[in-house]
């Protein structure tokens, strides 16, 4: 199995640390690449392959994005859709959606995800204020 997918952050792409072996996937930073489809294509494929190989397993997913453009938004939806499918397949997926307590935009997006994917164990987690 794919052990780990690690991509360091750049100014316009997030840090991707998908530690498949440890069942912890995390996405942190900002996401506004010129072509989000190209950036996320491989990430999504490997995640799908990983999720399809699971059986009654537990996975923790941490997303802490400060900014994402509209094409990245669609890719995020695709990712969450995969997680939702894995839940339907009998796994327990915990999705931690981290947002600054004052960031209403991020909070709203998290709430929309929760509405759209009610089966996911999605937790909206305010980050510590500095």
């Amino acid at each position, binding site marked *: 199995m794919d052990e780990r997918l690690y991509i360091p952050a750049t100014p316009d792409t997030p840090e991707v640390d998908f530690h498949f072996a440890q069942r912890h996937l995390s996405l942190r930073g900002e996401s506004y690449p*010129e072509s989000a489809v*190209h950036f996320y294509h491989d990430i999504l494929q490997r995640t799908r392959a990983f999720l399809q190989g699971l059986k009654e397993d537990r996975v923790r997913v941490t997303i802490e994005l*400060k*900014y994402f453009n*509209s094409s990245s938004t*669609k890719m995020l939806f*695709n990712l969450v859709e995969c997680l939702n499918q894995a839940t339907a397949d009998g796994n327990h997926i915990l999705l931690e959606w981290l947002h600054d307590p004052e*960031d*209403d*935009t991020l909070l709203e997006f998290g709430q929309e995800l929760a509405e759209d994917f009610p089966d996911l164990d999605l937790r909206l987690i305010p980050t510590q204020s500095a």
Partner: protein
Amino acid sequence: MSSPPPSDAPAVHGPLVIDRQFAGDLLMAVDPVTPEHTNEQVAEIFARHRWMQNLPVVHGRRPMGLINRNLFHNMMAKPYYPELYNRQSCIAFMDKNPLVAEVSTPIRQLTTMAVRTGEKVFADGFILVDNGVYAGVGQTLDLMEAMTELQERQHRQLLESIHYASLIQTALLKPARQAMAGHLPGRHWVVWRPRDVVGGDFFHFVSLEDGFLAVLMDCTGHGVPGAFMTLIAQAALERALAEHGHDDPAALLAAMNRDIKHTLNQYQTGAAGEIPLEDSDDGLDAVLLRVRPRAGQWAFAGARSPLLRIPPPQAGAAEYLRGDRHGVGYRSTPHDTRWQNHHGPCLPGERFYLVSDGVIDQIGGEKRIAFGKKRLAQCLQETRHLDMEAQEKGFSETFSTYQGPEAARDDITLIGLEPIPPHGPQERLP
């Protein structure tokens, strides 16, 4: 190609060749030595040609190596070395693996080769060959100059092209600006700032017998691809208007959705999210506002975009009217998607704001978080007593202070409209 420097003069570069594209354009002809030359002879050549940093060695017509002046002198300065090596072949202190490039190598590729060669290339330069036959040498500084020229030229060409595109995009927005100025003189403002000179935000304004229709479209992407999308979106809007008229914003969104899906052939294929990389999945967020001041009514429909409404003083607080959650034209938006119209009474002095997500999502402030809807509403509510021009200035100041040194993340558009003057019907209504 530059001519060889005079043998008794310091290195002078010939007239700057403007268009240096290949390794051969950096060529300096230097008479090479052969293994038959002794170190004593090499010392003499270096003494005679003070500009010469490197002396190439050839075997027959093929390059063998490069003797670096400083390295050579350092070796020969060691005790007993002259006595030991003076009469020996010059290959003793020669670098046997210099960078060798064909004269036809493009500058960009030569730069890559030079970087891979490592540090020594800065002092040693490189040997140039023509079909494997020694042709001359080149200096790394010349290569860097040529590479810089090349990049500057390409960058300039790109910028010139985008600036020209910006003239076209600005011209396309002019009718909307003129219509607004004619219909709502002193009662509107527009902040339109594409992130990359051209962009994916676009607005439209139609002056009508009984009021107006204002449209803001935020297409996927920015820069050139975003600008392409605005053309497709605008064409779709024009066709929708021709078919459905101006009174039903939701119907216009539905018609644009069908049109754009058809134009870009964006129909859902396979499982969600598994779209082939080369297939497009583009569309737009939009807000359409139809106002009929004399009838005292407005109608609004939004695709993933809100409308911000600020009632006149004492008539309530700012509120966002939420649009529907479907974007327009995307693969995931079904062909027969319907949007909803929202209606309300339009009051004297009431203001409406059409905003793209570039404003709401802009990162800034001490915490480096998004500007946000709340802050936007607050800023506009606090400045609602100002006339429109002063309010625009107020917003621009607040926003740029918030943004601080952060780069714009997206195209930014904010349009403010006051359909009925504050003092009500005694003023002439459009």
